[in-house]
């Protein structure tokens, strides 16, 4: 075998990223998961598939998304930075995509795969509702029936997205088991799938689940990093010094990071949700979890000593998940990517900071990344460049933020 010195050739042929990943599913699903892998390999080798994907991203999603130098945010942070410090902050504007987040990139890729496989019904889980909206959108675009599983807690705190999904023709099923959030929605999605394998395709929303999902979601989301890398080189003549992205399951982060993994001088920072604090309720599975098996893969999980999954908490519904994509677990263990965490309060502060300095209302998910950017920028010289993924816009979060800030709407 020709082993090249690259970090971008994972996973292995069993879907393992080091000790993480794999295919931990019920036997009923296993033949379908193997079919999906075969079909994905065929699609990768099919120029027509790539051409259709690229065409939809350009003309339907609105790619490439802009690369934006956040001058006033940079200046604002320099005011409180030590002399000579305060790195330049740039954003990859994936919040400008159709449907308002990066999620649509992956949904376009997966629904094209579903149609290649002859599947006629789509299901998905959603947390904040962004993946649900993106899935409902592509289902409407291609005329396939769509069922979205969403935790009842999330249904209550993300009403605008619930209504969007219904407008798009999707059936939204509130899930009441467990804490009624993303993990429980995923359980219910798997239950539907196992009962309807013959005609149903499960569009998983993050770079997790059984192989080949972590790989194919990463590949579809890598358009973010590929564009950003070329745009940054064209605009500044060099690569960024630090990449920053928020992590729930980790699809926007791996999409940004992956094309840069072999650029040794580019540092990377993934930002988990520390909720009320790492000593209280949080959703930081790398910071506070241990390796285990859930939802088709081995990865870091929030769990007790018996392997019971503990409930995650974050103000951001999209980060409120007790696990993380397996490639992140691996990148953390080999030390290629650094991971940190940001609390609800810090994310709310960063949310408001971006609103006031740049005229951009970010989603609560990238607000975590922005909070980490603000901390990092003050410790980096002015000639350094930070590139953060602004992976979603905040329209969906205004009710949550108003509530947290004590505004009556």
């Amino acid at each position, binding site marked *: 075998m020709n082993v090249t010195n690259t970090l971008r050739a994972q996973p292995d042929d069993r879907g393992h990223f080091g000790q993480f990943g794999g295919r*931990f599913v019920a036997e009923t699903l296993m*033949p379908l998961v193997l079919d999906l892998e075969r079909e994905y390999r065929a699609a990768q080798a099919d120029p027509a598939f790539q051409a259709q994907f690229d065409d939809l991203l350009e003309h339907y999603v609105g790619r490439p998304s802009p690369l934006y130098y956040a001058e006033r945010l940079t200046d604002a942070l320099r005011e409180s930075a030590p002399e000579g410090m305060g790195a330049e902050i740039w954003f990859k504007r994936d919040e400008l995509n159709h449907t308002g987040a990066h999620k649509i990139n992956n949904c376009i890729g997966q629904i094209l795969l579903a149609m290649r496989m002859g599947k006629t019904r789509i299901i998905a889980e959603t947390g904040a509702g962004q993946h649900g909206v993106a899935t409902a959108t592509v289902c409407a675009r291609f005329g396939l029936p769509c069922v979205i599983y969403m935790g009842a807690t999330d249904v209550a705190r993300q009403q605008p997205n619930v209504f969007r999904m219904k407008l798009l023709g999707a059936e939204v099923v509130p899930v009441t088991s467990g804490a009624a959030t993303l993990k429980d929605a*995923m*359980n219910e999605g798997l239950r539907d799938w196992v009962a309807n394998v013959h005609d149903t395709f499960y569009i998983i929303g993050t770079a997790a689940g059984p192989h080949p999902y972590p790989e194919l979601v990463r590949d579809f989301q890598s358009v973010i990093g590929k564009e950003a890398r070329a745009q940054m080189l064209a605009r500044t003549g060099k690569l960024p010094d630090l990449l920053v992205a928020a992590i729930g399951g980790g699809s926007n982060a791996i999409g940004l990071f992956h094309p840069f993994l072999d650029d040794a001088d580019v540092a990377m920072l993934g930002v988990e949700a520390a909720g009320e604090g790492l000593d209280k309720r949080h959703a930081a599975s790398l910071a506070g979890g241990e390796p285990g098996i859930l*939802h088709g893969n081995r990865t870091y999980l929030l*769990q007790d000593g018996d*392997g019971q*999954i503990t409930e995650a908490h974050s103000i951001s519904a999209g980060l409120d998940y007790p696990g993380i994509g397996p490639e992140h677990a691996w990148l953390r263990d080999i030390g290629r990517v650094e991971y940190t965490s940001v609390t609800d309060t810090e994310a709310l502060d960063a949310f408001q900071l971006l609103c006031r300095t740049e005229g951009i209302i970010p989603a609560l998910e990238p607000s975590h990344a922005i909070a980490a950017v603000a901390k990092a920028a003050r410790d980096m010289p002015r000639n350094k460049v930070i590139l953060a993924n602004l992976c979603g816009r905040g329209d969906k979060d205004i009710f949550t933020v108003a509530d947290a800030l004590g505004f009556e709407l």
Partner: protein
Amino acid sequence: MTRLTAAFAGTRAEGRAALVTFVTAGDPTPAATNAVLDALVEGGADVIELGMPFTDPMADGPAIQAANLRSLGAGTRTADVLAIVRAFRAKHPDVPLVLMGYANTMTRPDPARFAAMADEAGADGIICVDIPPEEADTLAPFAAHGLDVIRLATPTTDARRLPAVLNGASGFVYYVSVAGITGLQQAAQASIDTAVAQLKAATDLPIVVGFGVRTPEQAAAIGRVADGVVVGSAIVDLVGQHGAAAPEPVRTYILSLSAALAAAKEVA
């Protein structure tokens, strides 16, 4: 000879199918579970599947999901599950018991230590719902302890894939007769007959059929072709309904199933 091998040899000698019964450990409480297990044995169960409660039972239908919640709500820990096994083993030295559940609770703190604890407690094997043959190396320590690792075959397991499922299987083969979650639909008998015939042609291990079996008539029909019949959700529903008073109705119900299986042998 293992307890499982002996049990299936025994029922085969009697010309009938084995009755395999599932309940969730710790449901309704850890203290009340052994009385339910006693009722299963008294009613004529040949093999016990003891479910390990899990927060995220994604292959289970509403009945067993609720049992998992009742058990965890009662504070059941893995140590309690093992204590239930130990007490069962002391009282029923010859009745095989397999632990059934999900990978994350069966691999804590790690597979080798859990395998050692399960073996010490007196379990005979495991059925791990979310570890397919492709990830079977995770379960190697169980076989090393002499525990049977029971494999599942399903309606989606085609002829090309079946050898991989059977390679490394021991104890018995669990045929999941419905593509779906536990306790909801019942498969058409004709499809079960076909699947069991195909499995029997491919392995000498006993073939046990489950998912959606509730009535003595269903059990008897399956018992005419398979080596064993699994009943789970229907028993779990009785535990949910009667709580600590479940042993009596459970015994009565199990008696109706075991009688139906015994009667079915004459037709066969």
